[in-house]
């Protein structure tokens, strides 16, 4: 038996950072200013900051299932305890809804203060002025997303996406149909395209102007992460042996074009992906636990930030100043500064 230590010595980045182990499964990580807010299967938020100790907030009685950041930097979470909770940057919590024996599967925030959560087939929308509406769907909701102006809400489910538009008095629905189960949904930053991840190892999408369909298949695994990055913009995805980046410039976006494949030096398949605020970079976490950094470009060089330790990476996030958070399924965390390292291979 090979010794793990000699087989996988720490990278220089890893040895300069903090390595911790949590007794929980990581669920999500998002960047809020200089902090990385992480949600866990033990119902806790763990907040990482460069200059202070780890902050832990006991929030849900079971697992946190989803998390989203509001414009005021408060965090919304949904849990398998049926609670929809808001946590302010000061750490104060407010239960927005409580549905006994239900799961709050997905949460979303809009730029104007709109918030939404999904519970089974229903989506509950709340507007800052107090208006509320319950939106019904034909099957359980796979994902929800507001568009840039928060005038439309996309809801993915079996058979397609329902687009809810805010009309004068209420939210009204229209349907985008595509056979199969849609498990994630995301608007392009300019709202021209709407993309979903599917149960069948593929992406589907629509060009909103004319509802033209886009299908990207050939992924070896289900796509679990969709991240928009860069000015072009690119849509970076998990689910393959490298980070797959689809170009969304021009009228046709990725139609008929090849994606960029970056970070291919990791082991196994990409299971988590992120970009850094304001930078054209990609960090991809792999099923063997490795994390690879790359600038975005056809000839970009990859750089191994963390070596594989056997457990798949569940979450990666990086702040504007280069603080990197990595968590794997075994609960192992790496918290480290990338500043000054990633420009020199």
């Amino acid at each position, binding site marked *: 038996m090979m010794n793990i230590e000699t087989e996988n010595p720490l990278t220089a980045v890893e040895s300069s950072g903090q390595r911790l182990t949590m*007794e*929980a*499964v990581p*669920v999500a990580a998002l960047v809020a200013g200089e902090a990385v807010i992480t949600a866990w*299967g*033990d119902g806790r938020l763990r907040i990482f900051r460069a200059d202070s100790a780890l902050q832990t907030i006991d929030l849900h009685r*079971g*697992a*946190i*299932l989803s998390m989203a950041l509001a414009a005021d930097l408060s965090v919304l979470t949904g849990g*398998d305890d049926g609670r929809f909770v808001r946590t302010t940057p000061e750490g104060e919590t407010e239960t927005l809804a409580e549905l006994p*024996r*239900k*799961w709050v*599967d997905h949460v979303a925030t809009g730029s104007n203060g709109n918030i939404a959560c999904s519970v*089974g*087939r229903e989506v509950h929308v709340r507007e800052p002025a107090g208006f509320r509406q319950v939106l019904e769907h034909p*099957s*359980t909701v*796979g994902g929800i997303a507001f568009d840039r102006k928060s005038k439309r809400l996309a809801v993915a489910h*079996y058979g397609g996406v329902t687009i809810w538009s805010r009309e004068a008095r209420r939210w009204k629905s229209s349907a985008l149909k595509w*056979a*199969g*189960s849609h498990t994630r949904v995301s608007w392009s930053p300019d709202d021209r395209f709407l993309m979903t991840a*599917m*149960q*069948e190892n593929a992406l589907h999408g629509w060009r909103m102007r004319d509802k033209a369909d886009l299908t990207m298949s050939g992924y070896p*695994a*289900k796509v679990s992460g969709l991240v928009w990055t860069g000015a072009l913009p690119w849509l970076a995805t998990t689910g393959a042996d490298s980070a797959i980046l689809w170009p969304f410039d021009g009228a046709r976006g990725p139609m008929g074009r090849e994606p960029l494949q970056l970070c291919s030096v990791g082991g196994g398949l990409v299971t988590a992906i992120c970009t850094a605020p304001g930078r054209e970079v990609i960090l991809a976490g792999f099923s063997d636990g490795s994390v690879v950094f790359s600038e975005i470009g056809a000839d970009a060089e990859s750089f191994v930030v963390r070596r594989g330790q*056997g*457990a798949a990476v569940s979450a990666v996030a990086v702040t504007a100043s280069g603080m990197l958070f990595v968590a794997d*399924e*075994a609960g192992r965390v790496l918290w480290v500064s990338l500043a000054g390292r990633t420009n020199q291979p």
Partner: protein
Amino acid sequence: MTAQIPVTVLTGFLGAGKTTLLNRILTEQHGRKYAVIVNEFGETGIDNELVVDADEEIFEMNNGCICCTVRGDLIRILSGLMKRRDFDGILIETTGMADPAPVAQTFYVDQEVADRTRLDAIVTVVDAVNLPTHLDEAHEAAEQIAFADVILLNKVDLVDAAGLTNVEDRIRAINPYAGILRSEKCGVALDKVLGLDAFSLERVLEIEPDFLDGDHDHEHDEDITSISLHSETPLDPDLFNLWFGRLLREKGQDILRSKGILNFAGSDERYVIQGVHMLMDGSYLGPWPKDGLRQSKLVFIGRNLDSMALKEGYEACRAA
């Protein structure tokens, strides 16, 4: 690296005793903690900390496999449960009229579910008093028996000896490979229904020689039956894969479950297969016993099984 969580599926008609069995598993002292997924029409009174309500959603897959349906709600719930670490196993109670196929297929089709969990067994609870009526009136009753790894024949105290023999004969005519446990009020040892690992290829090796093979009269012609094929001549792996692949593509809707231990020419190892409709697992699984007979066995449970055509197709796979 993460251990797979065992999942036990409980099927059976309303009133057969699923909830009684579920409550026994949840309340007896065995040191294990279960998450329970109950159905929307379930009988009330399940006393457990971790209960999830499932709303049966059957999804078709866009993968060219026409009978390939999965339970979308289970994919979502199982993936949610995998975020927790505070239980050791999962119990799924299906609705009384559920077809077990989409439940079983979920464990083959969704990679995340397949990686994190394993289908331990399908346990079907039947009511010795009412089973004959259920079999005559609803095709789901036979499907639940066909898919079962274990059949808990409940309420045996309420039928006479002749009635019990009749019920067991009808069960065996549909599925001779499942173990039958007689019980009153689901009073069976829990290790007979939990921790069976019945969907592993290793368990296929325990298929008993088909003691019901041959002619015996069935009082009823069951809609679902089983067929077993044997041979001592080695099989040609290419011919077999060609034939078996085509069989599952063309007849996969009718073939509910298939299992086999195969003696492939040119290999000293046993090749083992196990399938649900068109989905199949297969692997070499260790050498044949040193002095034992290298007998291939292949069993099917399904509808409209044409025994002559199956036998001919199988025999044409013999290595030259």
